[in-house]
């Protein structure tokens, strides 16, 4: 389990890097934030608390999360559903009939992976609940070094942290699995 601030930084960095998130920020402002997050992850330098205060408060308030992991591994799934619904003007189940909307619906929430290839700057993980989905994830400097067989979390195209030894893992895995099953059921309707 990594430091909370590193986790927040990695989570937001990966969201911004995807291109799908932080869309209301100007590009140069987004780049500046990303640099701050990346530097904090790398060497613990200045944490952009001021920059993310508003975002973080919104994150927590939206789902009444009491800690950052409950938000990232729990409440964020509902936030994604709500945002996609708002953005498309449709209810979530209808919106994800389109593959172009399904893509962020799958990639925006965190996912759990078993590492099947490992390197210093990238890993390949197999999604625990979509077994045919194998994804390459970048490993930012300063995060842990996952090995083959580790269970890890990933967000968009980035590794977040090793989660295999968590006592709360089953709780979070169930939320992730339920979300994937919800997507499958919605597609079938």
């Amino acid at each position, binding site marked *: 389990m990594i430091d909370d601030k590193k986790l927040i930084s990695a989570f*937001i960095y990966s*969201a911004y890097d995807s*291109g*799908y*998130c*932080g*869309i*209301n*920020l*100007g*590009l140069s*402002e*987004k780049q500046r934030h990303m640099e701050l997050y990346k530097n904090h992850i790398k060497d613990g330098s200045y944490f952009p608390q001021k920059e993310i205060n508003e*975002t973080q408060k*919104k*994150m927590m308030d939206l789902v009444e999360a009491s800690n950052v992991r409950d938000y990232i591994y729990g409440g964020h799934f509902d936030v*994604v559903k709500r*945002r*996609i619904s708002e*953005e*498309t*003007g*449709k209810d979530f189940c209808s*919106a994800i009939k*389109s*593959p*172009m*909307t*399904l*893509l*962020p619906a*799958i*990639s*925006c929430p965190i996912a759990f992976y078993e590492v099947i290839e490992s390197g210093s700057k990238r890993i390949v993980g197999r999604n625990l609940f*979509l077994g*045919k*989905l194998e994804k390459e994830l970048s490993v930012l400097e300063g995060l842990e070094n996952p090995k083959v067989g580790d269970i890890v979390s990933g967000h968009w195209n980035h590794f977040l942290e090793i989660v295999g030894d968590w006592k709360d893992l089953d709780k979070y895995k169930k939320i992730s699995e339920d979300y*994937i099953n919800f*997507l*499958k059921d919605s*597609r079938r309707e």
Partner: protein
Amino acid sequence: MCLSVPGKVIEIGERFVLEYPGEERSVEISLVDLIVGDYVIVSGGVIISKVDEEKAVKFLEILDD
């Protein structure tokens, strides 16, 4: 945090006209070369990238499998 869904390029002229579910939006600047029919992501009022349709369809197939 905000979240974007891809828009489809339906017109390229002085501005890029994009189709979203239920509405059209126009954008002045694109950082990538585009043709009509491309799907794109807009951030900070600028088209920053194209979305790989194949990748999107692959996700759909994996989920429906």
